[in-house]
């Protein structure tokens, strides 16, 4: 692994955490972002579960695309196969954790079923195939690193936002803005803050 490679990997991580943040600029995984971000510890739990599932899902779906779907010329089955694999995988992880690592199951277990229909997980697996392909010898590594970055970005956004929400709970909001609307407007501000990172990655290691 040479210097150039390390540089590329750092750029992939930084851009998926800060610039192309999955929640705040690509709008994937908005439901858990708004639903489970009331308390900091909950958002950490959800974020860690998402990172975990994203990594495992990419590790499974990339070989399926490369060694099963593409050789058989069944690329169009991508959506069906990926969502089924993710659904089965999440179930399997839940059963596995329950049996072998009960402590982890206790803290992450409740979030796992919610992740099955989380568009961020399906999105990251499909985006990895479109962005990095299956031909390149480094594609699998890039895909895994990009999933890690996307998951970290999700966790980062969740934790920041839960801090913001606990402040909103205590403030006086106009009647028609109570609840959802003010949450969305607050999310818009945090997204605006992330907007400021645009362009940072190109010059990061130049």
């Amino acid at each position, binding site marked *: 692994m040479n210097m150039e490679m390390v540089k590329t990997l750092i750029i992939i991580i930084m851009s998926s955490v800060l610039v192309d943040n999955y929640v*705040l*600029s*690509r*709008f*994937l*995984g*908005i*439901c858990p972002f*708004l*639903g*489970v971000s*009331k*308390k900091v*510890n*909950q958002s950490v739990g959800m974020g860690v579960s998402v990172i975990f599932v994203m990594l495992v899902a990419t590790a499974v779906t990339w070989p399926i695309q490369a060694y099963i779907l593409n050789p058989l010329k069944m690329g*169009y*089955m*991508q*959506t*069906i196969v990926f*969502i*089924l694999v993710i*659904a*089965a995988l999440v179930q399997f992880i839940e059963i596995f954790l329950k049996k072998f690592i009960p402590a982890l199951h206790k803290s992450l*277990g*409740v*979030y*796992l*079923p*919610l992740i*099955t*229909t*989380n*568009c961020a997980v*399906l*999105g990251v697996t*499909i*985006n990895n195939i*479109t962005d990095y392909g299956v031909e390149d010898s480094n594609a699998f590594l890039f895909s895994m690193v990009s999933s890690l970055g996307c998951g970290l970005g999700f966790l980062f956004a969740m934790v920041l936002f839960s801090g913001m929400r606990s402040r909103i709970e205590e403030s006086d909001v106009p*009647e*028609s*803005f*109570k*609840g*959802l*609307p*003010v*949450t*969305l*407007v607050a*999310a*818009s*501000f945090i*997204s*605006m803050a*992330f*907007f400021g990172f645009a362009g940072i990655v190109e010059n990061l290691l130049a």
Partner: protein
Amino acid sequence: MSKQNNMSILLKGLLRENPVFVLILGTCPTLATTTSVDGALGMGLATMAVLICSNIVISLLRKFIPDTVRIPCYIVVIAGFVTVVQMLIQAFIPDLYETLGVYLALITVNCIILGRAEMFAGKNSVGKSALDGIGMGIGFTIALLAMSTVREVVGAGSFAGNEIPFLVENGLTIGILIKAPGGLMVYGLLIAVVNKITKGKLIKKKEFSCEGCPSASSCHGGCSAEKEDK
């Protein structure tokens, strides 16, 4: 009586149970594809097509699908129709396919479709489920059009790709509205407007909660139970 009933099933999706502004489902495509009116219309119609087809098929199969594995079964049916719609759009409207990109495949995990399958099509007859699909689909499309009209007119000074000279020449556009933060802000403001007009009566759901979440049955209210004991 029955006719009246069918009419109300069809119409409730438009306003009283509008999936975007009242039930707060399908937030991801609502935010991501409303930067232009064209994209929003395409997304709305594609979702509607999938919703109607999956509602009909799930309703036909409702007596054969065992209760314990119904969610995976629903997902397979939905993903099948999404693939069909994806291939049709790629073949006949390649521009739209480029605009929507990954969000087209992500119709599969759109909560509206799984939510309607779980809440309506799995319990009702084929005809009613089809009407529900049509109503909800139109409601979703209207909501996307409303969002995208605000965002495109104010953000880019154009409507469906046609520039509005008055706005552009006088520099009256707010560029951030077509960027990511604008989506969240316009969505929040529109819900607040609906709240204001109906004096908070329409939108009963004040927070994101397990109610209406299609995964709720499989997590046994896990996330809300945890909220209470902490």
